[in-house]
């Protein structure tokens, strides 16, 4: 028997589940009408109590809506909102990035998943059977590729100017396959099969010529899309991919047993390099070519905030989250600015895009706020439901929200909205 992991075991047994017993609809209808009868006989008293409680709760919880002007800290360099409570809606900030009505089902009636943007009018959508070009205006699908080359869902779907590139596995097999197909549609072509042990990161990156990923043994693996040749270029022996054209060399902060800081960035294609300076109180630091997002030591944050009070300005007042203070800085360590208070140390993360990077924040109220400190733009989902750069292994990463329930398995339901990070400047 082959080795499998938890995911494969679950999918194997899900596929082997026998058909449900017949007569389910009749039993559901009977159960529903039983419940209705019980509720009716439950009587007016319960209804009165419920109405009273509901009214009380509604009055008590009625939000006080005030038109609060967006406030920025008026200093040059990286910009941050003064508070995450006063951030405008996402769609008003990045209308081109927010998809109000992403497709919910494919032409086959299967749940559809938006995995990227092909051009201004078309989204790349998959339904575990085919890739489609979805016309946002006409709301029509065109099949690009049918069959992903494996019986697992396609992962790491990347869009280059001329190719779709993806990775896929078969249940129980210890290798994955990389395929490409013309971005305008056509037959898939196998690029390479690789043992799974080489697969470490999901932050893949592709150009028209090659696909890159981080190898488990260290370094960035480059695979030619034309002949499938695999190499680890010497300049990238110790680096890791970032999901963008910039690979990253990371290290541990001096004198610490945990934490990671970026040391330098190097362009996968041109070899261009950017060095990074982490100040002594930094315990974690992730960078894109235009800025860094970091966190200070909890024990030393008071001292550092006092010493950098002039640059942190009033936005840092009271900002002392568990595990230290979040901040942004330039790559050379200058221009450090503290982020407004957040509920805990996992509330902020750096989202990398080819255009640079964004900061994704989860506020104390559960809303998602996206901040671009370079352009000084920020937007909020304005709702606590739904979350995340889920499907981060799809390119480009997307944020989903809306409706009463979180989107399941990266697929969008009715009322769900979608923001493609790559389109947010």
């Amino acid at each position, binding site marked *: *028997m*082959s*080795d*499998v*992991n*938890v*995911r*494969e*075991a*679950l*999918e*194997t*047994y*899900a*596929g082997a*589940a*026998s*058909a*449900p*017993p017949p007569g*389910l*609809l009749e*039993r*559901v*209808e009977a*159960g*529903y009408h039983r*419940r*209705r009868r019980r509720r009716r006989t439950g009587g007016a008293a319960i209804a009165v109590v419920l109405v009273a409680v509901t009214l009380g709760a509604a009055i008590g919880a009625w939000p006080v809506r005030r038109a609060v002007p967006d406030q920025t800290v008026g200093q040059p360099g990286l910009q941050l909102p003064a508070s995450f409570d006063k951030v405008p809606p996402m769609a008003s900030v990045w209308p081109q990035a927010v998809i109000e009505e992403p497709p*919910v089902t494919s032409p086959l*009636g299967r*749940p559809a998943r938006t995995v990227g943007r092909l051009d201004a009018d078309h989204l790349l959508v998959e339904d575990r059977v085919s890739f489609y070009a979805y016309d946002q205006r006409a709301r029509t699908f065109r099949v690009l590729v049918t069959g992903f080359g494996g019986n697992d869902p396609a992962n790491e779907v990347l869009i280059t100017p001329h190719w779709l590139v993806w990775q896929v596995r078969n249940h*129980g097999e210890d290798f994955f396959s990389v395929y490409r197909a013309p971005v305008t549609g056509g037959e898939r072509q196998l690029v390479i099969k690789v043992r799974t042990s080489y697969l470490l990161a999901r932050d893949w990156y592709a150009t028209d010529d090659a696909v890159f990923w981080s190898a488990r043994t260290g370094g960035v693996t480059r695979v030619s899309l034309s002949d499938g040749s695999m190499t680890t270029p010497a300049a990238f022996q110790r680096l890791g991919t970032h999901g963008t054209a910039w690979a990253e060399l990371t290290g541990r902060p001096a004198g610490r047993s945990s934490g990671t800081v970026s040391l330098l960035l190097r362009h996968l294609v041109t070899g261009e390099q950017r060095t990074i300076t982490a100040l002594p109180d930094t315990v974690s630091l992730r960078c894109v070519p235009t800025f860094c997002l970091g966190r200070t030591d909890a024990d030393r944050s008071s001292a550092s905030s006092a010493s950098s009070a002039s640059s942190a300005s009033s936005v840092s007042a009271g900002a002392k989250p568990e595990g230290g203070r979040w901040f942004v800085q330039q790559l050379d360590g200058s221009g450090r600015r503290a982020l407004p208070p957040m509920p805990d140390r*996992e509330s902020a993360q750096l989202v990398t895009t080819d255009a640079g990077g964004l900061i994704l924040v*989860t506020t104390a109220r559960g809303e998602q706020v996206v901040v671009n400190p370079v352009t000084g733009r920020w937007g909020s989902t304005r709702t606590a*439901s*739904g*979350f*995340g750069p*889920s499907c981060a292994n799809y390119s480009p990463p997307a944020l989903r929200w809306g*409706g*009463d*329930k*979180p*989107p*399941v*398995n*990266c697929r*969008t*339901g*009715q*009322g*769900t909205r979608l923001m493609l990070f790559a389109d947010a400047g």
Partner: protein
Amino acid sequence: MTEEQAFADFVRHRTAALYRYGYILSGNHHDADDLVQDALIRLRGHWARVVRRDDPTGYVRTTMTRLHVSAWRRRRREWLTASVPDAAVPDPDLAKVDITGNAEQVWSALATLPPRQRAVLVLRFYERLTDQEIATTLGVSSATIRSQAKRGLDKLRAAKFSDLSEALR
């Protein structure tokens, strides 16, 4: 199409997938059947609202997950004792953990997990939800989710090693 017809269509088209989900969630056909039926009864009562504002499939799956966990709680109520509250377990590599073995071994080990731990692993590895999405689905904090996932994976590892050591005797 009337509301009844639309609901009947939904049941016809989605039952098989929901049943599969119920099966991996509960581990047996009987409970899978109960979960699907109970969740669909609840959906039937809120069909118009759910269709208008939400994804009915997501609604049913969330209901099934919560029913699965709460059903276990009802059964176990008389054995409950004071316990240590869930605490956050920092483990950034948790999402990359693989428990290897054959599918039968892993499935058997999953059957030994409490329903909430099993639900967390199903949502993470089968539904591929993030911890925050799982937390929203189950109505708990993401720290609890990480804690439950870690405990579940630890038990799977222990079960696997136990099986292997027995097999080697």
